């Protein structure tokens, strides 16, 4: 790379490491939501009776 390897490989490393992290985070989020540990599936918000009661 004509002495510029650190900049070139550094750029490619940052790009593909961040993409890999993003993919891993989406896979983790998918697994969490499938097993019921998702961000918005807390027990109090999942109770349908509370939801319908509040809407009247």
């Amino acid at each position, binding site marked *: *790379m*004509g*002495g*510029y*390897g650190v*900049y*070139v490989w*550094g*750029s*490619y490393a*940052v*790009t593909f490491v*961040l*993409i890999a992290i*993003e*993919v891993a*985070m*989406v896979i983790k*989020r*998918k697994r969490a*939501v*499938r097993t019921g540990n*998702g*961000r*918005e*599936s807390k027990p109090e*918000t*999942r109770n*349908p009776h509370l*939801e319908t009661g509040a809407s009247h």
Partner: protein
Amino acid sequence: MSKSRLNWYKYAAPVNFYPLAGKMIPVFAVLSVIAMVVGLYLGFFVAPAQDAQQHEYYRIIFVHVPAAWMGMFLYVLLAIYAGVGWAFNARLGSMMATAIAPTGAIFTFISLVTGSLWGRPAWGVYWVWDARMTSTLILMFLYIGFISLQSSIEDPRRADRAGAVLALVGVVNVPIIYFSVQWWNTLHQGATITATSFKMASSMRPALLIMVAGFWIYSIAVVLARVRCIILERESEAPWLAEPVASA
């Protein structure tokens, strides 16, 4: 009302969109890997060893330009989805906006980091408060602002509306980034590719265009995967989720 019009609206409903997105993700994921591998091969083995003005570090262009474009395009797309979700009370539109934000923020961050890694050998500095770089940094803050604003509001629909206001106000920054190299004297070079010109050696063009395609297709795949998670998180009480379609 024509049949095609009905079909168009069909996929605005999460119940119909969810399985469709599930089928599309593997296709886009595979295509994006193929495009990136081909693009990198062309960028490193076919593109010439040395540019006329720059040295080997010009090869950063094959990730820098696609990432910078995605950062801008995705913001415009985010603002459109957020605006549609707000104006027409279409919750899937708002969910798409929420799903786009992290990917846009990551691409904007990649463009800033690869840009500074290019700036150091080319200009001698990692960073200058040049119009293009400053406006791109503002884009990054807009994404972070959008994500933190939405996560700070408990009620999803209120979070959607607040996010939409921020997204639509912030969209003014995108043309500022794009035209910054024309409007101000910037250290950053002008546009390589415009509607009428392509100022680049022809042997370098396929690599850049294929990398752009790869980043686009990747974005589609990862945003669809994220929006499926958001649909499940938000609609956990919806009856359709109890049906087999959710496992598709």
